């Protein structure tokens, strides 16, 4: 499971990479694997205002539709139009060519609510443990 060291993460498996005041947002390798082959990305409109952890957009696979939440508050300033024509980019290059939106961050302090790469790695490990321990009723 690939994790990029200098990115920040959410427990919903989004990543954000921050440069100056702009956050580039995408979904993690774990998320794209869990979703399976992505068939559609419903991009938000440019200029959309979002709050941290509010629903930002949704992605579809054949048998599921999943909401993607914004890791930061701010205004959407750019969306990755390439995903409209070829959503498989999200599966193949989730951390670079598969970026989804860029957001002009309105509250830099909120990044303290996000996980570092190490914290996210530990979080995934804990999920894995729970998953193995889970069993069917009865």
């Amino acid at each position, binding site marked *: 499971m690939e994790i990029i060291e200098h990115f920040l993460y959410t427990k919903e498996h989004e990543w954000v990479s921050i440069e100056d005041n702009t956050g580039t947002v995408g979904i993690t390798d774990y998320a794209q694997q869990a979703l399976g082959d992505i*068939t*559609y990305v*419903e991009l938000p409109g440019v200029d959309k205002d979002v709050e941290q952890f509010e629903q930002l957009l949704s992605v*579809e*696979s*054949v*048998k*599921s*539709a999943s909401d993607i939440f914004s890791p930061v508050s701010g205004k959407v300033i750019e969306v990755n139009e390439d995903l409209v024509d070829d959503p498989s980019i999200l599966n193949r290059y989730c951390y670079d060519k598969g970026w989804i939106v860029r957001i002009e961050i309105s509250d830099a302090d909120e990044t303290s609510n996000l996980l570092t790469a190490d914290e996210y790695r530990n979080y995934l490990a804990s999920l894995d443990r729970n998953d193995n321990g889970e069993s069917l009723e009865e």
Partner: protein
Amino acid sequence: MNPYIANTPEDVRLMLEAVGARSIDDLFVDIQPRHAPRSFDLPEGLSEYEVVRHLNDLSLKNMVGPVPFIGGGYYDHYVPAACQALIARGEFYTAYTPYQPECAQGTLQALFEFQSCICALTGMDVANASLYEGGTALYEAMMMALRITGRNRVVIDSGVSPIYRKILKSYTHSLNIEFIETPVLHGQGDRSAINKVLDGATAAVILQNPNFFGAIDDHADIAAKAHACGALLIESVYPVSLGLLKTPAEMGADIVTGEGQSLGLPLNFGGPYLGFIAARKKYIRQMPGRIVGETVDAQGRRCFVNTLQAREQHIRREKATSNICTNVALCATQAAIFMSLVGKEGLKDLAQLNCDKAEFLKSRLAMIKGVEVKRSSPTFNEFTVCLSRSANDVVERMMMRGFAAGFPLGRYYDGMDNYLLIAVTEKRTRAELDGYAKALEEVLRA
């Protein structure tokens, strides 16, 4: 014994033994005595013959004898025998929703062909695998336009079926949607009234062609105005008329719906019928209901599957584009068979025949004293006349002469008590048309 239960008392004994229960009652332990029915007051069952005889007696109490001239969106077209014979195959009608594509390619391919025929008919890019019927299909089209535009005002022409308009209003009663009904002018949609209310808050303009009065129109100018405001044009259409008439796509419509009964379905006293919806490609994800798509299997063989299911209720639950689960697959299959039988040239001829016969009756009626044929706009196979007396009375008297003479518009339009809507299909013969004119003349003279 019930002919639809195969288990004999011996089977039951063996099965209970296997299950470890003493009686069938034991299997109902969770239904406790306090849950028992307060009554279950029903007659005992009849034999098959008795039921058939009883229902045949009831069927004879319905008057299907008078020569039909009633339309209103539902028409007495001929249904070729092959249509009925093919959909009577148990492999079609006792199958269910194609959840397992490997053992449902028949239904899936038939629905793909249906979608393609609807696209060819309307000129639109995409169609779904059908909706319940024309009225609820128009409601779904309206909801689609609201989702696409994010607006909540709808402009609807009074020439749209009054039944459909009532449906739209019932469904949106508790939702925050503003309806503006615009009047009909000289039989057609009133441009100036529509233009006056079209603005940046309008989600859609809803029109029907031919409209409820039978008048045909070209709505390209309204489409252009709507698009200039960022609104969509929704057209409700009568499929057979599209053998001749300008397609909604040519007019610039964004979403097209209609009642498909005229595509090989019997009148059935109101159902089951066939709603269809088609749209521009960019709106496909906002389209409700089942959609069949082409793909290939693991070995590269062409095949068909339910696709874009992530829009639907079984995946999105409360966030779905609509609550619709199934379509009317059998009716859509029947329509696909009808459209294949009629074919490209047959549709043109069929439409021309309908139009010719209606024009003939129109010209005959125009000569009758007490009949004013509304000629402000051309019509297809249905037209409006104004009579010198109440249309209700005329229809009742015509019925005694063996003609279901038409539908009195006063039922749905205030102040139109003398107006009669008359439909003529390819099934009406010259003799029936002459007979109708003669009978009407007598009734009006009496």
